[in-house]
């Protein structure tokens, strides 16, 4: 009992409480880059930078305003979904690679209970959002897809924040509010998407980077 260091002991208690209950393996920089990726992809679509595939211009504004023939629209929506899927897959890959590196360095497992809990809380809002968005596309209500994804993603983050970074809750509310605003300004959905998914993640990622990653 002679050499007790209360400061060290309290620190280790707090550390273990955090480590065992919060999922914090995502690297800030990787989140930043997923945001950047989103902005690049969305800008290509939004500003019609002459990106075309078999004579179909990929243009968000044309899509929203139901311009062009039905066939044309179908092809556009397929192309947009393809781009979105590629971006999503790439982002997940970046997150996965960096997170597994980070956990290896810290000597903990990536697929730990807090990770599972975080994923579980994300799944319900995200899957329902995905299905809902699918039906929006199915019923040709393209303009509401961007707002809907923002809203459901925001709800997912708010739910996940209990098992992860507290700051996720803030990001969640930001996405939620952006989604609601985007529902009103329907034509500008992609712009809100750029703000929410792009800038939002860039800010959040750099915040995490400087607050946690760099500090440790």
């Amino acid at each position: 009992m002679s050499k007790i260091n209360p400061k060290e002991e309290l620190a280790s208690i707090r550390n273990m409480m955090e480590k065992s209950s919060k999922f914090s393996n995502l690297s800030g920089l990787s989140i930043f880059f997923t945001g950047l990726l989103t902005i690049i992809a969305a800008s290509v679509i939004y500003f019609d930078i002459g990106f075309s595939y078999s004579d179909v211009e990929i243009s968000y504004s044309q899509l929203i305003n139901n311009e062009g023939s039905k066939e044309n629209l179908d092809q556009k929506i397929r192309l947009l979904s393809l781009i979105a899927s590629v971006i999503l897959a790439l982002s997940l890959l970046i997150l996965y690679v960096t997170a597994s590196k980070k956990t290896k360095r810290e000597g903990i497992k990536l697929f730990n209970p807090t990770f599972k809990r975080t994923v579980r809380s994300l799944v319900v809002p995200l899957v329902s959002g995905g299905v809902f968005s699918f039906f929006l596309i199915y019923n040709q209500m393209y303009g509401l897809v961007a707002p809907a994804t923002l809203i459901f993603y925001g709800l997912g983050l708010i739910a996940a924040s209990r098992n992860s970074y507290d700051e996720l809750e803030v990001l969640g509310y930001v996405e939620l509010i952006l989604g609601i605003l985007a529902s009103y300004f329907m034509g500008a959905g992609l712009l809100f998407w750029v703000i929410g998914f792009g800038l939002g993640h860039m800010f959040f990622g750099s915040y995490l980077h400087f607050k946690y990653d760099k500090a440790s």
Partner: protein
Amino acid sequence: MKGFDQLNKAFESRVRLGLMSILSVNSWVSYKEIKDLLEVTDGNLASHVQSLEKIKYLEIKKQFIGKKPLTTYKVTKMGKEAFEKHIEGLEKLLLK
């Protein structure tokens, strides 16, 4: 020394302190999860778990998931109170 008398001898070891920290913020944590988090050997953890259970700070639940046995732990009300008092003691020592 103020606060010193509030320290609990049961929490003197690093492993027990870590064990209580994990269980005070999570309920029903499996043996393997605890082992991974604390980075200790089987024998080491088992003996600490046993002694904490003996003084009724821990509750043990053994069950089967399919054919695999699963042992999970939870802190008892008594254990929680004891741990809180211990933390309080540490905090008081820190203020001095």
